[in-house]
């Protein structure tokens, strides 16, 4: 059956409402590599296949064991003995015919030995249940090739993710509680004129009750200025007085009782946010001061060219402000007044965007690139989101693991809460050490549990010593990690599967903000933590 755009729109409707058609397109152009199709791996892939990733390739040299089938939805017992990559690909592929599934019956170690450039073709590589040495080797290859790497593991009741990406820029971060961009503290000319056109005292009752609160606040601000030496209401007392001033403007009936004017109530309610000074956040300021922003070359990604263009705008045309966003919240008003006010902001936003566009053009010209290389649509989207730009830069695994650059401060200060998630991170590093020394994980077999406790403790101590970490790891955790026997319970793998897949989608679509850079899930307490290591 031919897959039409309409039928895909139907199937993906619920997610298109989150990342739009353009986000979906990025997803469908992506090719993700999964290393090791254990339960954690297949659960991650499931959550990428279902939303329609373009293609996936599983790299796995293991054969399916009975234990593998027991916790993995995408392995069946008649695949025992077969290569795990192949077996898992079949059942994952079956989830979504839009997706192209591939497998390589090979261990990642072999590929790193013989053909490390194999990994260069991928949009993102996800490494699951990797031994430390493989992880670091692969990490280095991907870092140098600038390919995002997501390390995931489930160890007993602990989930772990590490994102490794040099620099990830986000235009559409979709913040949950964004402040409006109303410019009431510094109204641009068109807004000033528009406010001027209102005569609150002279208008009829119906108009008065349906005037947008933005206009009301602006008008009363003017009044306040004239009575307070052109100063804004500054503290709580003054803001309350300002609210009272507005309240006095509510029409009164013949009897002298105030009429029901919801728009005035809205104005009063919104005074605090309306009086927020228009300014550029420190986050965005940092982005403006980024290296890439300063040296524009023909290799510079579009994000940085546009950032530079907006910076030029801020300094030359915007009076120190970003381009006007152009949106206003809904508010009590009649249609005409609202639409007219909305159009004032929209038109200003369009104007500002076209000035930014000129800057983009001249930047592109200066490095010999055609102006079409960055579309008007992209520039408009960028301007609309200028206040919400985010850049995520993760340290490499080499930096995390090297004694010279280990983040001692983060580890030590987090270990102040001895039962927080940081101790779980140290335990994971310790079991990796154990694996290096004994070629197995602690406590896999019942008889090993007791004797491995002291062996694991030696690993913990050597780890702490090597990194000069003056922290205490409680014996209980050493016991617990032996108890786990490197098991991968399905529910923990599934939690990780959902978490990791969404981070992968963020990387691919460049929407929403990925974590930076270490995430720990504790299924015992149902708590999580994120560390920057």
């Amino acid at each position: 059956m031919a897959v039409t755009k309409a039928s895909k729109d139907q199937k993906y409707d619920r997610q298109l409402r989150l990342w739009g058609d353009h986000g979906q397109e990025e997803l469908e152009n992506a090719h993700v590599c999964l290393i090791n199709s254990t339960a954690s791996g297949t659960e991650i892939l499931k959550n990428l296949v279902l939303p329609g990733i373009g293609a996936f390739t599983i790299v796995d040299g293991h054969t399916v064991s009975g234990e593998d089938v027991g916790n993995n939805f995408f392995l069946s017992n008649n695949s025992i003995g077969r290569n795990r990559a192949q077996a898992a690909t079949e059942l994952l592929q079956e989830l979504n015919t839009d997706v192209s599934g591939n497998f390589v019956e090979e261990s990642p170690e072999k590929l790193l030995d013989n053909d490390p450039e194999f990994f260069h073709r991928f949009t993102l590589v996800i490494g699951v249940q990797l031994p430390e040495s493989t992880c670091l080797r692969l990490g280095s290859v991907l870092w140098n090739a600038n390919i995002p790497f997501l390390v995931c593991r489930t160890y007993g009741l602990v989930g772990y993710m590490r994102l490794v990406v040099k620099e990830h820029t986000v235009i559409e971060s979709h913040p949950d509680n964004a402040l409006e961009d109303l410019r009431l503290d510094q109204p641009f000319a068109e807004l000033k004129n528009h406010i001027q056109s209102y005569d609150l005292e002279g208008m009829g009752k119906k108009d008065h009750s349906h005037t947008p609160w933005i206009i009301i606040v602006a008008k009363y601000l003017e009044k306040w200025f004239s009575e307070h030496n052109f100063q804004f209401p500054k503290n709580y007392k003054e803001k309350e007085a300002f609210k009272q001033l507005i309240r006095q403007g509510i029409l009164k009936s013949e009897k002298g009782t105030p009429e029901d004017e919801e728009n005035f109530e809205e104005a009063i309610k919104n005074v605090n946010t309306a009086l927020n000074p228009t300014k550029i956040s420190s986050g965005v300021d940092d982005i403006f001061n980024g290296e890439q922003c300063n040296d524009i070359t023909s290799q510079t990604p579009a994000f940085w060219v546009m950032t530079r263009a907006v910076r030029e705008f801020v300094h030359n045309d915007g009076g120190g402000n970003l381009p006007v966003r152009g949106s206003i919240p809904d508010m009590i008003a009649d249609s005409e007044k609202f639409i007219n006010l909305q159009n004032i902001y929209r038109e200003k936003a369009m104007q500002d965007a076209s000035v930014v566009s000129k800057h983009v053009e001249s930047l592109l010209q200066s490095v010999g690139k055609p102006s079409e290389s960055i579309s008007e649509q992209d520039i408009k989207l960028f301007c609309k989101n200028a206040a919400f730009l985010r850049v995520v830069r993760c340290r490499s695994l080499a930096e995390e693991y090297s004694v010279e650059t280990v983040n001692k401060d983060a580890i030590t200060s987090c270990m102040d809460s001895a039962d927080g998630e940081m101790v779980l991170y140290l335990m994971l590093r310790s079991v990796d050490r154990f694996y290096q020394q004994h070629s197995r994980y602690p406590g896999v077999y019942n008889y090993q549990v007791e004797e491995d406790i002291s062996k694991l403790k030696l690993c913990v101590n050597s780890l702490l010593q090597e990194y000069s970490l003056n922290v205490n790891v409680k014996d209980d955790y050493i016991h617990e990690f032996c108890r786990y026997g490197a098991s991968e319970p399905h529910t923990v793998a599934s939690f990780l599967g959902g978490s990791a897949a969404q981070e992968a989608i963020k990387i691919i679509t460049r929407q929403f903000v990925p974590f930076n850079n270490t995430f720990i899930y504790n299924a015992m307490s149902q708590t999580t933590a994120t560390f920057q290591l």
Partner: protein
Amino acid sequence: MADTDEPEKKRRRVVELTEKMVVDGGSRDGGEWDGRWNHINTFLERPGPFTHPDFEPSTESLQFLLDTCKILVIGAGGLGCELLKDLALSGFRHIHVVDMDTIDVSNLNRQFLFRLKDVGRPKADIAADFINGRIPGCNVVPHFKKIQDFDESFYRQFHIIVCGLDSIIARRWMNGMLLSLLVYEDGVLDPSSIIPLIDGGTEGFKGNARVIFPGMTACIDCTLELYPPQINFPMCTIASMPRLPEHCVEYVRMLLWPKEKPFGDGVGLDADDPEHIQWVYQKSQERAAEFSITGVTYRLTQGVVKRIIPAVASTNAVIAAACATEVFKIASSAYIPLNNYMVFNDVDGLYTYTFEAERKENCSSCSQVPQDLHFSPSAKLQEVLDYLTENASLQMKSPAITATLEGKNKTLYLQTVASIEQRTRPNLSKSLKELGLLDGQELAVADVTTPQTLLFKLSFTS
């Protein structure tokens, strides 16, 4: 959780039930193979420093999960599919699933037990088939029904109930049902009558998972304020002052459709009928053009009419997994369960917040404290009705009020049956005194949000 006594009694009850219950049907051997349960055995057979105080490592715990433990999953949608998979791969074999819906194409991006060929079929049936086929030995029993179609005798048979619902009303009903199963002896709660309720909810990139021990920990209604009532657009905006594209769609849905009856007399708007949506879309565009409003798209139209909530596989996977982990913990006593509410949001990085939701002393559902209604004898019945629906802790939908007057049970107002609504409507504008109600009188209130009738005490103010 309260004190540690209760879980011990609970565990003893579980052992008792194990001995008494006869497990019916299903293939016992279920195609076992070596190592199948290795990943969970470590938690059942080995002692550890963080286990529940009552936990006793045993090779028999696995058998309890496999052969005896009975779990009910409510909902076979985004959370339900994940829950069934998670439970089946955690050793649970006796699982019932209830869902009243059929499969829609828009489910396929996350409800992974369904395929294109299954569209139109009952979710419960297809989900059960898939799991039973994929996980040898698992016996999921489907029920293509509403939760309200079952009574106490059905719910009583389960050890643990997990909800993956998309409706607050349904959650409250389930909450009420489990509360109604509680047995109090001389005012003391019999712990063996408690059925733990694990509840999960998701919306876009946000979700929450909670553990409820009815009668002991905060119930759904204790924290009703966490679910603020849905705000609809004011009628005057829709009727004469639209500003947003959504207002235009609501105008067509609520005002134009009943007026123009585009598909015939008595044909209501079917949100699932693309032809109906197309009509609404076109008319919405016309309305928008009238007011110079931009932004009406087919997708937006559909979203408003169907009250669509965006959804992805990943959030459902996370929340269901957290819930299933709790089911496992409680069934095996391996760890202390979540106490008792976890919130998740992965819009910016990954954020969780875990806290203990507190019981409300005078919770209308679980506190056993009779609810007072304070009204003046001259207040109209309409005011009482408004209070029942608007009060943040009650949030009833369409309450039916009855009272015993002159020894007879009298329906004061009921809106769910048209003929009775008509007959009792005049009572709304009568005062409580006129209706013959006395100070201290009991009013019985029934509503979709609870399977039990709630009793209120009428307290006259001067």
